[in-house]
């Protein structure tokens, strides 16, 4: 997994609530057995509209997506963060996320940042008002700030997830450090409830 430390990136605003993973990557783009190659599927239906934000030249090269509440709801498809990453995004900022999308993101070195509704409102305003609006996302310090530091917001993150992202760690390897414990648990369970095995 790629490390995530500090990201200084152009921000693209997607002003819709409840963006579901069927929109992030429609099912006609899921027909692959690889983890890459999903960029063209990203928001494929919405991108047919020339006015859609991702089609606007001012947002070309953006790496930070700004969203509204309940971002990533619906299907568990991990193709959603894969498509965002393939397109060039490394971070999405929103007031809330659906649980499965949120979890999937961390597994791929992709950072979902939760800010308050009013903080997100403020960022939408800045983004719309100033072409080329960039943010600096600093995972170590847990801050989202404008490049001139005039705006700075703090976000929360689970210490374990932060540690894995900062170091780009393979979670399976980490879990297998507890292999002995898992085996013992399994043996106890099998003795007590053999019908599950």
């Amino acid at each position, binding site marked *: 997994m790629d490390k995530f430390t500090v990201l200084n990136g152009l921000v693209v605003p997607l002003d819709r609530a409840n963006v579901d993973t069927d929109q992030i990557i429609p099912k006609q783009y899921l027909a692959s*057995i690889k983890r890459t190659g999903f960029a063209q599927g990203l928001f494929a239906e919405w991108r047919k509209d020339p006015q859609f934000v991702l089609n606007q030249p001012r947002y070309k090269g953006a790496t930070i997506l700004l969203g509204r509440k309940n971002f990533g709801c619906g299907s568990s498809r*991990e193709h959603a963060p894969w498509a965002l990453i393939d397109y060039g995004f490394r971070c999405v900022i929103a007031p809330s996320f659906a649980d499965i999308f949120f979890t999937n993101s961390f597994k791929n070195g992709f950072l979902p940042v939760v800010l308050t509704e009013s903080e997100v409102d403020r960022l939408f305003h800045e983004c719309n008002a100033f072409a080329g609006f960039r943010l600096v996302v600093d995972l170590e310090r847990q801050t989202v700030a404008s490049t001139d530091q005039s705006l700075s917001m703090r976000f929360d993150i689970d210490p374990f997830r932060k540690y894995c992202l900062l170091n780009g760690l393979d979670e399976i390897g980490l879990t297998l450090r507890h292999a002995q414990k898992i085996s013992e648990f399994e043996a106890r369970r099998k003795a007590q409830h053999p019908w599950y095995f």
Partner: protein
Amino acid sequence: MPQTLYDKLWDSHLVHTEDDGTALLYIDRHLVHEVTSAQAYEGLRTAGRKPWRVESVVATADHNTPTTNWDEGLAGVRDPFARLQIETLDANMREFGAKVYFPYLDKRQGIVHVIGPEQGATLPGMTVVCGDSHTSTHGAFACLAHGIGTSEVEHVLATQCLVTKKMKNMRINVEGPLARGVTAKDVVLAIIGRIGTAGGTGYAVEFAGSTIRALSMEGRMTVCNMAIEAGARAGMVAADEVTFEYLKGRKFAPKGAEWDHAVAYWRTLKSDPDAKFDREVTLDAREIRPHVTWGTSPEMVVAVDDAVPDPDKEKDSQRREGMERALEYMGLKPRTPITDIRIDKVFIGSCTNSRIEDLRAAASVVKGRRVASSVKLALVVPGSGLVKEQAEREGLDRVFRDAGFEWREPGCSMCLGMNPDRLSAGERCASTSNRNFEGRQGPGGRTHLVSPVMAAAAAIAGHFVDIRRWS
């Protein structure tokens, strides 16, 4: 300390906890399908890892499989990418193994959330995961069951554990009798309408109350299935006699003395009387009417005798814009009575509503009638080969066919349109599935979520009708 059902399930699977609460949770049952597993097996192969316990894996191909052309074998899968996913699953099963695998064309193949319970591979007290968000379905058996992403699929294969954190507890109580024609689907749509599509985010939801207790296992599965549409990864119902009765004698359910031991344990799988929930919601079942979604999120739902809502009456600007966008996509005008909405297609199927009880209910509505001439296609897609077989034994296939429905092979089909069963742009569908997102059933397609009896009645009438007035 009194515990909720979720607390009990959590505690009984806890292998390890980090200081920040991140936990390793042991997984009993891992359901695998063709669309979200290929990359996970590839990851194992690349890292030189082996599955921890292949006996936990139950696999099938369901998401992209055609519901026609089965007589042509694999050649009947016209989409080369779909065929590649099916063949890749076949190859991964040969290489890595499973407790049981129902490949494409097997007569026991079907939607993964239908076949798990049907085979007795879903048992009370289990943790169940699958790379599919509707895994919440299995919570109907007092399981902790939820959807996971592909990286987690790989993690569970390699370690038999999930890295996760404990969710909060919510209980949704539904009390009282349901009116005639009002079903489990209407109950869960009413719940989603009440708490919203993100209302359950961060929670494990227990569905309780006399209405839930009175539901069959099929009905409880329908309710738990759509917990995710209210944002809750896991929905669950306490185990009781209905649960045991359903499971007894099924292929992978325990037998003999082991069955008795299991049932004795399963009887403890309910919330203690004084258990504390972080949030409780109560609905009066007598007030629940047949529901129809009008928009592009399952929370955009009203009763059949209501009208399409008017965005101008919505004060919250973000919500108003969402409603306006949804109405434009759906091609609907505010204040249109729901029963005036005409439909082009009907889909009866999906992990929400494709079980035998659903098909019986729908068949009872269409029996002796004809699908309206304005309806281009009315599809019935049984949830599994065994459901199909059972329905055919009961003559339900004839009832549907005689009425003008197509009777198809099992699979996820038009719920997500990864196979050839899709809506064309602008087509409007009465669907028993679970998501009315933009393009879900086909690019530009318009989905209205309803119960099987409501879908069946809409097929006959050509528009939505209030099933309570159906004679």
